[in-house]
Structures are given as structure tokens and as C-alpha cells.
């Protein structure tokens, strides 16, 4: 059991969680009767993928991926001296020389992609909720079985 934990579960912990979350979402999407609960399932499903992407960008002991023209030590020194003009000079001299080591940075690209995916998800949820509202206005219910009964009852299609 401990072996399983150390070799299989722990190194891929995020990935296990994303698969579990995804399955929860898919289950809610398929099995739930209430339309809003289906939408919650859909959201969980999308969020699981966001977790997957964010996990791709993570490295151990990595810093934030921002280009630092001073370098950290120089930055502290320049601040201690309090000389702005000198600092600007130093910055000019460092630009281009001190490219930061990408190995020490977390990968920002998946996070950026997920900002877009979050926006897409929000838009989808908005459209879906407004359609759910229309359904409630027209059928007077959000329970799928009741709606299907009304549809099959033939009193539809105005």
C-alpha cells in the first residue's frame, strides 16, 4: 500500500485528482436529473481540465517567470543605495546581458492558456444558464424527467 502510494499516487497526485474530478463532472452531467446540477457537473468537468493544465506548468522550487533586468542581488543593492539614476544606468547595462535561467522558472504558458479556457468556460456557462432559464419559462420545470414528459405528452410545439 505504501509502495503504491509512493510510486503511483504521490508523483502524479494532481493527475489522479484531475481524473477523479473529471469523472465526477461527467457523472453529474449524465446522471443528474436537474438541469442546473448538470451544469454544475459541466463546470466541474471543465475545471478538472484547468487543473490538468496548471499542473503541467509546475516545477519544484521554481520562481515566477518574470524577466528581471537587475538580477535579484543587484536589485537589492540598488535599492539600498537609493540611487534611482544609478539604478537606471545599471538596468541599461544589464538588459540583454543577464538572461534569466528558464530552468528556474515555472512554465507560464499553460497558465496563460487556462486564462483563455476559463473565459471560454464562463461564456459557456452563461449561455447554458440563460438557455436553462428559457427552459424554465417555457416548461415551468428544470427537472429533466418532467420536461421530457411534457415533450412526450404532445402538448408541445406551439
Amino acid at each position, binding site marked *: 500500500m505504501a509502495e503504491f502510494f509512493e510510486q503511483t499516487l504521490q508523483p502524479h497526485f494532481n493527475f489522479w485528482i484531475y481524473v477523479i474530478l473529471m469523472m465526477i463532472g*461527467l457523472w453529474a*452531467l449524465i446522471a443528474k436529473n436537474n*438541469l442546473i446540477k*448538470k451544469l454544475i457537473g*459541466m463546470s466541474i*468537468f*471543465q475545471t478538472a*481540465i484547468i487543473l*490538468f*493544465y496548471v499542473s*503541467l506548468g509546475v516545477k519544484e522550487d521554481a520562481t515566477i517567470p518574470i524577466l528581471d533586468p537587475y538580477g535579484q542581488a543587484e536589485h537589492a543593492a540598488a535599492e539600498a543605495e537609493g540611487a534611482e539614476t544609478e539604478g537606471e544606468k545599471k538596468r541599461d547595462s544589464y538588459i540583454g546581458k543577464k538572461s534569466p535561467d528558464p530552468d528556474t522558472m515555472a512554465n507560464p*504558458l*499553460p497558465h*496563460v*492558456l487556462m486564462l*483563455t*479556457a476559463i473565459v*471560454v468556460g464562463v*461564456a*459557456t456557462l452563461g*449561455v*447554458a444558464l440563460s*438557455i*436553462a432559464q*428559457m*427552459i424554465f419559462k*417555457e*416548461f415551468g420545470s428544470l427537472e429533466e424527467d418532467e*420536461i421530457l414528459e411534457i*415533450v412526450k405528452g404532445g402538448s*408541445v*410545439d*406551439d
Partner: protein
Amino acid sequence: MTDQIPAILVLAPLFGAMIIGLAGQKDHRACFPVALVSLLVTLFASIGAIFTVIESGPIDYFMGGWEKPLGIGIHLRIDSLNVILLVAIAIVAVLVAIFSIRRIGDKNAEKTPHFYSLYLLLCVGLFGITIAGDAFNLFVLVEVSSLTSYGLIAMGSSRRGTLAAFNYVLMGTVGASFYLLGVGYLYLMTGSLNMQEIHSIFVANPDIASSKAVAISFILILIGIWIKMAFFPLYGWLPNAYSYCPSSSACILAPLMTKISVYVMIRVMISVFGLGWVFASPGYSNLVVWLAVIAILAGSMLALAQREIKKMLCYLIVAEVGYMVGGAWLADEQLWGLTGSLYHILADAAMTLCLFLAAGIFAKRFNAIEIDDLEGLFKKAPWTAAGFVVGALAMIGVPPTCGFFSKFYLIRGGIEANHWEYVIALLISSLVNAVLFFRIFEIAFFGVKPSEGHGHHEEEEAELKEEHHPEIPNWTGTSSLLVASAFVILLGIFNGKVVELIRVALEDLTVVAQRF
């Protein structure tokens, strides 16, 4: 100027949609001209793109000048494969816009700006999908087109349309999420999102290309796209969504959405993974061809069981998607199957447009929703009926129309690849189409079977209904229908030219793609 074509294709409808959103609030009559102008701009741009691509090769466009190696950026690429599709999308969009002039404006003037801005945004998505050169951009653009199509479907007055739109939202989102997940695995393995970059990394590192994660990503991407294109086991959302939505929405969605998804599948197979990789193990391609066979047969059988015209057409779309997927996966030496399926994307767009336009006109003018309601319509609306007949003959596969030639190429591919089950399925499906449409012709020419006996009465009723809408000028709808049917025939007559273009494109691409 020609360098900017990819940007123009996406931006012209986008700005059109914004202008409509603002100006349409004051006066809904301003909507249609703006929409038409921006669509005509895209039409001219795409025709210009054809000449540019034939003369000087693919057009690459990097939005904001962020070039490939940086990993993220918007890469638009027009090559000889997608340039024909661009023209097809632009033509369909213009024709349906003309068809929709009075249809949208009549009853609900306040919805007109909403309809046209969604319509243009849908075009943004479709053009974007076609020219996207980046796997993640493709996801975003697929979602742009899907979100707008949810809106377009839910706009109708039918309650079942709203319900169908809701189901479509759920299915469509799952599909897009699977695609996104697949792209994630691709990024994990290659560190790039650009299609060309990914492909060159695969070519350079066969061990990456043969890893399990890449195989998984391909399967996830395929499932995602199959949901979007309503491939057989995943087609559940399509029939209700397309048959209960407003006919203008159905006319733009039915010819384009599923076909563009087929194109995405082919693009991913060729440009990202490479045909050599995809067809490396024949077991999988045989499996997909069998799935396509089931899709063709099931779609045709389900179409036989329908009584409503539009529902029947929707199930025929399911069968046609089977044609295209099967053709793309035939994996014959000369790639005739793939050629046929690319040609069928165009042909099917034209004939589906024809049939849906005709069904829309029948439904609006004569209230003919079910097949039996079509009685005697050949006399009352000869032009519309003529357009319908052309579309139907193309669906059956009668020689001068494009449907015959696409089936010809698909069958040739099937024979060369020794997939006889696919050939037989195509022939059975053609027979079923013949049965379906000749039943309709019979009813429309000679009336319902005498045993039902209320023919004369219904005729009177239909005349009354016609008098109910005297203000509807039928020339807009009918003329776009006639232009569409002209395209069905022209595409058939000039099939040699189109196929030559496709062959050139495939040779260009597969020379690069098969070097494994």
C-alpha cells in the same frame, strides 16, 4: 494587401458583428446591409486567397508579429487545402444571409440584431477554425462557433428547440473539453502548440511520436472532434437541434458545422500527427472505417423512419458524416479516399444547403413540416421544388451533380483500400436516399396515397395558408436556393478542377507528413 487576407477573413465579420450590435439597437433594418457587406468582404478575400495560394504558395500570418518559436501566438495559415473551404464557407454564408432577410425581420424585429451578430460571429469562428495554425487557437475558435450556434438554435419559438440547444451545450462542451485535454497531452510531450512545430518535433523525434501519451492525446482529440461532428455513436444532439431551430439558423449550421469539424479532423491527421503516424497500425483505421460503415447504415435507416422533412435531413447528415470520416480513414495508397472525403465536404455543404433552404421555404410558405404536407407543391412552387430536386438528386448521387462524383471518388478509395464493407454501405445508403427522395417526389407530384383520402382538402388548406403570408416576397429565398442548386451542378461539372486542387494540396502536405 494579399498578406493581410487571413486577418481580413476573421476581422471583417467580427467588426460587422460589433457594428450590428450597436447600430441594430436603433434600427433593425441596418443589420442586414452591414452583415451582407462584411460577408461580401470575406467572399472577395477568400477568392483573392485562392489566386494568391495558387500563385505563390501558402500565406502565413502571425497576429501581432509573434512568430512561431515563442510557443504562444495566433498563427493563421491559408494553404491549398483550406483555401477552397474558405470560399465554400463565404458562399454559403452570403446565400443564407440573403435567404434570411425577411424571415428574421418579420415577426420579431427586436431579435434581428441579435440574430445577425450571432450569425457573423459564427462566421468568425468558422473562418478561424479553417485557417488556424495553432492547436489551442483552434479550440478557442471551435468554442466561438459552438457558443454562437447554441444561441442561434435557442432563438426559435419552439420549446423543443430550447431543450435541444441545452443538450447541445452539454455535448458540445464535453467535446471541446476532450479536444482541449488532448492538446494538453500534446503540449506536455512536445512543448509546442503550433501545428507545424509539433509535427516537425514528431518527425525529428520518433520516440516521442511513438509514446503512449501522444497516442492518448490523438484519441482524446478524435473523440472531441467526433462529438462536434456528430459521428455515429455521438450524434445524439444533432437531429433535434437542427430540426427545431429557426430555418435560417439551420441553413447556416447544417451545411457548415459538421463539415468544418470533419475538416478539423483531417487537418489534425495530416498536419499535426502526419498520415504515416495515423495509419501506422491498420487495426485502428479498420476500426474507424467500420464505425463509419455503422454510421452510414444507421443514419440512413433512422432517416427512413422519420416523418418530418428536416429531421429526415438531419439523419442524412449523420450518414454523410460517416461517408466523410470513413473516406478519410480508408488509408489507400493513392489517398483517393481522403480526396473524396475532402471533395465531399464541399459537395455535402452545397447539397445540404440546397435541401435545408428548400425545406425552410416549404415550412414557411406552406407550413409543410411533415413529408405528407408536401403534397402538390411542385405546382405551387415550381422553382423551390426544382431546387429541392437538384439537392435530392445530388444526395442520391445522380451523375451531373456533385454527389455522384464524391461517391465515385470515395468508392474508388474504398475499392483500392479493399474496404468492401464501406463500398457496400455507400451503395446501400444511396439506395436508401433514392427511396426517401422518390417517396417525397411522388407525394409532391401526385399527392398522398389515395387511401388517406384527404388530398383535396389539404390543398385548399395550403392555399389558405399561402394567402396568410402574402407579404412574404419569395424571391430572396428562392433565388438563393437556385444559386445553391447551381453550385451543386457546377461543382459536379467542374469536379476535375476541384479534385486537382485537392490532389495538389494533399501531395504538398503528405510529402511533408509521411517522412517518418
